[in-house]
């Protein structure tokens, strides 16, 4: 009985991946069957030309992410800066290909976005919030930033999970983390910025829905999930209350 060869078999033959016994069988069949030869030829092309074509893409790649410089700093935020650098792991400024052109004033938001993209439901699910500890931390953080952050404990459609102080380039950055009803992680981050005020603006950062605004030298960022309208709604609510 004569064996039939599929296109996948012929491809494996051309690629040198067919086992020896099958290869011998195929070569015998090729010697007898012009149609099979035609099928083989219809699959044959120079592999090196595909490689050459794809190699033209290598110098089109964006620059690799660069880790933040761990230059020694003095002050209370150095340990936090190291932790943030490790967690964030990459620096900013290399997102030349993002849909929106970012300048240096956007750096803190991109740093947050890179951090937030690692969050999954389990990141925030394990522990119940500690009300007393949370209250004390929020008060301390509010004092550090000169802005009462307590209203952010209650956000539309989100359940508060925890807050922590991070640092970026020596500046304090407060992160408040939440889960939506569907278990999607969200964060509201606050830091001092050198920008004029603006109302909430929607933007996609590292594939996540985000909205940010500046009020009296304080920058706010809401980020998480993919529902832009949901994030905008939170931003509008918080910008009115914070």
């Amino acid at each position: 009985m004569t064996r039939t060869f599929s296109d996948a078999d012929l491809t494996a033959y051309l690629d040198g991946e067919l086992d020896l016994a099958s290869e011998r069988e195929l070569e015998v069949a090729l010697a007898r069957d012009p149609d099979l030869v035609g099928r083989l030829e219809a699959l044959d092309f120079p592999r090196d030309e595909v490689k050459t074509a794809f190699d033209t893409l290598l110098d089109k790649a964006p620059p690799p992410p660069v880790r933040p410089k761990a230059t020694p700093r003095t002050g209370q935020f150095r340990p936090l800066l190291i932790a943030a650098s490790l967690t964030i792991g990459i620096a900013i400024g290399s997102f030349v290909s993002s849909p929106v052109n970012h300048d240096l004033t956007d750096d803190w938001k991109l740093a947050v976005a890179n951090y937030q993209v690692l969050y999954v439901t389990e990141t925030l699910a394990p522990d119940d919030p500690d009300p007393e500890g949370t209250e004390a931390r929020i008060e301390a953080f509010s004092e550090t930033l000169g802005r009462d952050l307590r209203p952010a404990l209650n956000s539309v459609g989100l359940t508060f999970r925890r807050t922590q102080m991070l640092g970026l380039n020596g500046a304090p950055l407060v992160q408040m983390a939440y889960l939506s009803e569907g278990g999607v992680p969200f964060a509201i981050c606050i830091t001092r910025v050198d920008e004029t005020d603006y109302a909430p603006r929607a933007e996609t950062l590292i594939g996540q829905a985000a909205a940010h605004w500046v009020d009296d030298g304080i920058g706010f960022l809401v980020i998480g999930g993919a529902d832009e309208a949901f994030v905008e709604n939170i931003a509008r609510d918080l910008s009115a209350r914070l």
Partner: protein
Amino acid sequence: MGQIIQKFFFIGSAEGEVRRRLADLYPKLWRFALTLTGEKSRADDLAQATALRALEHAEKYREGSSLDAWLFTMARRIWLNDMRGEAVRRGAGLVPVEDLDLAALGVDTETNIFARQVLGKVMALPDQQSATVLLVYVEGYSYREAAEILDVPVGTIMSRLAAARKAIKAASEPERSGLS
């Protein structure tokens, strides 16, 4: 915090290798991301996210194994588990691109016409066929290695490459005869 700082100052040699070589491998990682996503901005995001996760989990890299394959496997997981669903929800990613926008990639007209033709046709292939072509015909992985990276049976690699070969050959024949 103590553990984190310790980790920062006393990284193992496997972690060190990841950190040292990531920048050099980044263009290849991005190119692989491009074949998975079919679109430049998503490839940028996927490559970034993969690099981030590689740095975070550098201690899991097994020294002496293929760092390229480790990164490609990670990128494939991130794309399928974390990013593709979102791309689909946003109305992209389900339908294969009919033709990659090579101009957006900066592949200019000076690039050999056949190379542009091949790139366009390979990138238009559906269902990870373009990623399979890249791994086997460009990166030089065996069928078995490509199957491990993409987490599919070897038979799937064979059938994808057969379909890809047909498409590439069919596309290249008229172009070649036109050029001759």
